[in-house]
């Protein structure tokens, strides 16, 4: 089915993330398929409303030695890619190829200082991305994870990026995979105050898996990031905590989404859109259309006109924390 036809069929699924309007709530998560333009285009043709690029910095990075991924019990995954990327300059052709096809591209940026983040963001903006996603949360690269756990540092990065991009482009902050909710809320609020347009919750959780024969970590880098079904209830908990904290910018949920039901769960907890990574492995790159079909079926059965009506609508009067 052509993209246009699909959008018509799934008209109940339109969402807004601040000023960013999307035909459905599913977004390709950073680091999946996105090293090459062809991967971004494929995800979009297979139903993703927008695609996040591989996280990119100023300088090229080779990433960690292999193994870089390992599958665990229950379709969960750990990865320690180490954010390989050719550096923003050499990555621009990939972005251009996708942007030229009018695909909403979200540029994921990292940096070793607020200035570096901003330089990457400025280049991304020039390339025509729809929004910037700041990766202050990778659990297996340097001190990114700690940066995203610190409200001040995150605020400094966001301010600098917002300033250098002249407030002309939405800036999303991707939060660390953490269970430290007071801190996550503080970081999110600091980001909001510094001008962020949305938060993305969560990145992978820091984890360790060992091979008992060689007695070594199963990933080349040792520590890796846990993704997939294992982290879904943890990320949904975080989304709900952020939602009811008084944060006013939208929340994009991410972690372990495999089905339309999973997306509804995220919405009920407070999400306005979702990103999908590991699910591409489990259900293939058409997971996006599959999920949109499942969502439309759900919406019809429940006679809900717009999926946006579901955000934060968990019946929660009894919820204790």
């Amino acid at each position: 089915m052509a993209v246009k036809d699909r959008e018509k069929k799934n008209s109940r699924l339109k969402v807004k993330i601040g000023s960013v309007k999307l035909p459905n709530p599913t977004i390709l998560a950073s680091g999946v398929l996105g090293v090459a333009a062809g991967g971004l285009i494929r995800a979009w043709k297979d139903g993703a409303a927008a695609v996040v690029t591989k996280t990119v910095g100023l300088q090229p990075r080779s990433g960690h030695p292999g193994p870089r991924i390992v599958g665990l019990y229950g379709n969960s995954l750990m990865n320690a890619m180490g954010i390989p990327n050719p550096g923003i300059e050499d990555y621009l052709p990939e972005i251009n190829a996708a942007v030229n096809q009018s695909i909403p591209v979200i540029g994921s940026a990292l940096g070793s200082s607020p200035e570096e983040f901003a330089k990457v963001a400025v280049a991304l903006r020039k390339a025509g991305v729809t929004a910037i996603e700041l990766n202050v949360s990778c659990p297996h690269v340097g001190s990114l994870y700690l940066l995203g756990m610190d409200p001040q540092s995150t605020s400094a990065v966001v301010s600098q990026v917002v300033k250098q991009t002249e407030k002309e482009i939405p800036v999303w902050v991707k939060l660390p995979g953490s269970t430290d909710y007071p801190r996550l809320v503080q970081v999110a609020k600091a980001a909001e105050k510094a001008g962020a347009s949305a938060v993305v919750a969560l990145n992978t959780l820091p984890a360790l898996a060992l091979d008992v024969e060689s007695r070594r970590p199963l990933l080349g880098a040792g520590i890796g990031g846990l993704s997939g079904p294992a982290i879904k209830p943890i990320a949904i908990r975080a989304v709900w905590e952020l939602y009811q904290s008084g944060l006013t910018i939208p929340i994009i949920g991410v972690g372990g989404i495999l089905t339309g039901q999973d997306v509804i769960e995220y919405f009920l907890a407070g999400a306005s859109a979702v990103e999908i990574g590991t699910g591409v492995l489990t259900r293939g790159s058409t997971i996006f259309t599959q999920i949109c079909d499942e969502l439309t079926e759900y919406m019809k059965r429940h006679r809900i006109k717009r999926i946006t009506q579901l955000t934060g609508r968990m019946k929660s009067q009894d919820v204790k924390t």
Partner: protein
Amino acid sequence: MTTNKKLTPSTALHPIVTPILNVKTETPRNKRFTLSAAPIARIATPGQFMMVWIPGTDEIPMSISNASGDQVEFTVARVGDATTALHKLKPGDLLGVRGPLGEGFVFPKKPKGKALLLVAGGCGTPPILFAATTALETGFAVDVALGATTSEELLFQQPFKELKLRNLVVATDDGSEGIQGTSVDAAAFLLEANSEYAASLACGPEGMLVNLNLLLQKFPIPLQVSLERYMKCGVGLCGHCIIDSKGRRVCHEGPVFDVKTLKNSDFGRWTRDSTGKRHPVNPTDTTCPS
């Protein structure tokens, strides 16, 4: 959604860590490793590969050069850190293998009376040995064009001789054995005598594959080529090995492609390094890429 996957992660995602059973020096540059890895060995087809983990060093892609019973083999050309580390290992040392990965060669239907042209260039020889073995078992007549830089680097000449091939034509760059030239010249030699092939299956340096494709333009013989690209995940997730705007992944839809599907791709044009940066493929370079 009902998924029928078991809770135990598939061997494509979680390594089987197992001692090396046997190491055989095939040429000064190539060693063949045998491991016991039943879940992989039992379902592997020629052209598929494994991610081979050298604990403490790295994990790199390796074609399966043979699979029988519970055992798999792969054959490693020493070119850099990980392959050098591999070459130092001995029987009993542990390796991890994930696989079988990707899609292998697709044999034409109804083998009876049909012939295949297999073309192996240097470090691309391992999957061709496995393909030749399987093709013969399936009932094809098999011709092999085998090339290498020099006589002593001719890989698997002996194993190929032990198979019931119809023809084996050897070529060396320096003419130290067989025809002087590449495996493509060996293939041309075979095609001159007889061009009735149901298909041609090839693996080797990308320049060689490009040349073979040019040669085969003149014949109605479908060509399948096995490509090499830098691999990070090996299972189609990260996108590092994507070669076209359709998002085809060498690790997942490949490494073997029908050359027709590669028209608007990076084949013969671009390759990526470990950072994901694109570099032009030198189409005249017909030596091993690594």
